[in-house]
């Protein structure tokens, strides 16, 4: 892998991380205020559709962006009404919003454009295009021949759409709001102890609604970014679970803005790997080492604990081992060579596995093997004045 490939990978990671980052910060504001929001996905999807549709119709991507933010905020307010005003189950409300967006975007796209539930492809000027920084090279050929510093500047620093820079800027801004302003103090307080906020004479309802609306705005930008900057138009289910991955990144980031940046860049890297290296070849021996190593680690972890750990993790280890040996023997018999020779054969890692990597990593993050996090204390519970 040469330096330019690494720069390109980093560049793609940032590009893929931005929607995650915006959604993650959206979730951060909401959850810091005590409102769980599993509906990030739905809000992004709705915003992706509306901003593409409006950009196409109006010809202005900025109008599209505003419209996307608008629909996302509307959905956020619905979530607020369900979970703040009517003290409903926040998970169920979020799930409903996800389905609502998934269904309605296609229905309306079909009714509006009649192109099978997608928007028409956006013309150049109805999209967010990359900004070329002064002095940056834009042609691929030039870049490949430039010095490493120039490659880094041209490919990694320059050339992103304005939303990427906005998204990155949102990190310090979020930090500043949370930790340096009155609003941030109150927001953090209402997610930890709403009764303290209430008795201090501050409206819990208003504060939580503000948080939910900020969440809506950020999800709106994330959605618009997907359909007007990453791609040129809306396609069905184009958010592809990013809303859920953002939630996992949020937990990984322990509900802190700077950590969120790191977590999202990591997930962005997974997506970048998937895009760039769809065809990964591995020698059987490495597959064996990897899978059996995992199996051994899980078993060692389990035996020192309780029966249930032994059963579940032991079972998982057995499955991993079985997969490893199946791959090994199957390769041997397919190529008609000896078992030992097969160890040095290379096989293609199933593309489904590569695509599943971010999701797998989410599960590992949630399992808490990568550091245990303490969520906001009042998270997920509606505020009811005690009697």
């Amino acid at each position, binding site marked *: 892998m040469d330096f330019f490939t690494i720069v390109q990978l980093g560049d793609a990671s940032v590009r893929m991380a931005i929607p995650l980052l915006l959604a993650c910060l959206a979730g951060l504001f909401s959850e810091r205020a005590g409102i769980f929001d599993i509906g990030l996905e739905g809000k992004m999807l709705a915003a992706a559709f509306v901003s593409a549709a409006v950009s196409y119709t109006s010809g202005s991507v900025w109008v599209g962006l505003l419209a996307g933010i608008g629909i996302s905020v509307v959905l956020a307010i619905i979530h607020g009404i369900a979970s703040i005003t009517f003290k409903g189950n926040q998970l169920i409300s979020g799930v409903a919003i996800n389905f609502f967006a998934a269904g309605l975007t296609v229905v309306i796209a079909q009714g509006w454009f009649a192109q099978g539930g997608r928007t028409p492809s956006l013309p150049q000027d109805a999209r967010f295009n990359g900004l070329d920084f002064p002095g940056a090279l834009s042609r691929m050929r030039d870049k490949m021949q430039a010095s490493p510093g120039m490659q880094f500047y041209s490919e990694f620093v320059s050339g992103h759409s304005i939303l990427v820079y906005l998204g990155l800027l949102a990190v310090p801004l979020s930090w500043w709001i949370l930790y340096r302003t009155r609003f941030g*103090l109150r927001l953090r307080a209402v997610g930890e102890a709403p009764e303290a906020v209430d008795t201090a004479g501050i409206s819990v309802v208003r504060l939580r609604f503000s948080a939910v609306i900020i969440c809506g705005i950020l999800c709106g930008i994330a959605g618009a970014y997907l359909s007007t900057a990453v791609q040129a138009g809306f396609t069905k289910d184009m958010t592809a679970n990013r809303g859920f991955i953002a939630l996992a990144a949020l937990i990984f980031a322990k509900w802190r803005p700077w950590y969120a940046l790191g977590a999202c860049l990591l997930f962005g890297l997974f997506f970048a790997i998937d895009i760039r290296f769809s065809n990964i070849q591995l020698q059987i021996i490495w597959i064996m080492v990897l899978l059996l190593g995992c199996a051994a680690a899980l078993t060692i972890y389990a035996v020192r604990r309780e029966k249930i750990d032994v059963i579940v993790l032991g079972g998982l280890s057995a499955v991993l081992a079985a997969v490893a040996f199946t791959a090994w023997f199957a390769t041997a018999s397919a190529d008609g060579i000896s078992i030992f020779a097969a160890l040095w054969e290379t096989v293609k890692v199933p593309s489904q596995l590569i695509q599943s990597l971010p999701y797998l990593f989410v599960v590992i993050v949630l399992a808490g093997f990568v550091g245990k996090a303490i969520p906001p*204390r009042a998270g997920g519970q509606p505020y009811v004045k005690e009697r």
Partner: protein
Amino acid sequence: MSDIPPAIELVGISKAFGPVQANKDISIRVMPGTIHGIIGENGAGKSTLMSILYGFYKADAGEIFIAGQKTQIPDSQAAIAAGIGMVFQHFKLVQNFSVLENVVLGAEDGALLRPSLAKARKQLKSLAEEYELHVDPDAIIEDLGVGMQQRVEILKALYRHADILILDEPTGVLTPPEADQLFRILGRLKAEGKTIILITHKLREIMDITDTVSVMRRGEMDSTVKTSETNPADLAERMVGRKVLLRVDKTPAKPKDVVLEVRDLNITDAKGVHRLKGVSFNVRAGEILGIAGVSGNGQSELLEVLGGYEKATGEILLNGVPLDLTGAHSDGQSRRARGIAHVPEDRQHEGLIMDFSAWENTAFGYHHDPDYQINALLMDNAAILRDAQEKMDRFDVRPADPLLSAKNFSGGNQQKIVVAREIERDPDLLLVGQPTRGVDIGAIEFIHQQIVALRDAGKAILLVSVELDEIMGLSDRIAVMFDGKIMGERLPENTNEKELGLLMAGVTDGESA
């Protein structure tokens, strides 16, 4: 009366929570610069009334006058603006914020935090000197003890320039010496001209510190009198509406063999805090061992270990046979099988499932009982229902309807359901935690009688209570816990509240002498 207007005057306040009338047409006058006590039983409506005054609840009817001016208090913001501060029974603090941030929250000076914090830091220092309320402004709340947290609450009110300070059951979590210190602070505040309203159900506090006292009963205002013109017996009668027996009728205990022996019990929690430190004691058949102490000194953990839902190191023998403290048999089911019944401290979150009907709760914890099964697969719901009906009749649970959800019973009747379930199991050892917390007086007497009757039937009883009166009245022997240790054992006839109070504060005989 002079012509100074009262600091607070409430006229005809009413408040209902659904079908429950918490406050009925209540009127009260509190004069400035006095300490005014409000006393009443649990559920008499004291806290509701004060929460209305603080804007936490909105009254259905009635008027509020502050310093003679009619004032609307729709929310806490309005109450704060009217110069009212309140220290709730359960503190309203953000646990992972610093003292400074908690004080500033809601009383910031502008959109940016830094100047507010700087100003508050200075103010806090001068308040600390003025009222002897020293707290480290940068300490995180969850690292502070309850006494300190209470100071932060008082500072919060003073920082907001409160002239009227309401304290709801402030001594419930304090040791007697801490309570004395609080009362000194209140005295100082009064001297500075502040008006203080003290809500309590403890007669001694009323007699010790207040100038006037109002008695509430069942949501209504019974009377307001000068403290100097009344006495505890009179107040108690007003609280309950009839003469009360302040003592439990019981014959001397006839202890037999040791049933429960606890040796060197230790618990260290996840944060590495030692909750129990080498606790040892024993309980004999036919006696009640009372464990006194301010809540949070290890009594709950002790009950949890004995009840099988907390792990510990050390040794516990039941009838001479050890209990499993860490392994597969350290669970509640195994404990029940060994003949330990448990009336837990918190009936709403432990003893009962509030959404279950009374009959389902009758089987709670005993759902594996063979009498409750038709066969290996199915439960005999009809048998449980019959059993529930019998128990509810015998324990005079009202209404005696086993189909009703637990949440629809009053506190006393809920507790009777739990006590009936546990006592009727005829256990060798009964664990009882706070048996009468939030229970009306009629039910208290009944529950106390049941506990004594079980003792007389030759069972061992371990009673944990933060109510010293209850400990003194019921126990045959008293052990005092402080900071996870047993500070000493006393016989009720040879001790008094003062001596126990010192032990509860961790002062041993040697030091007090």
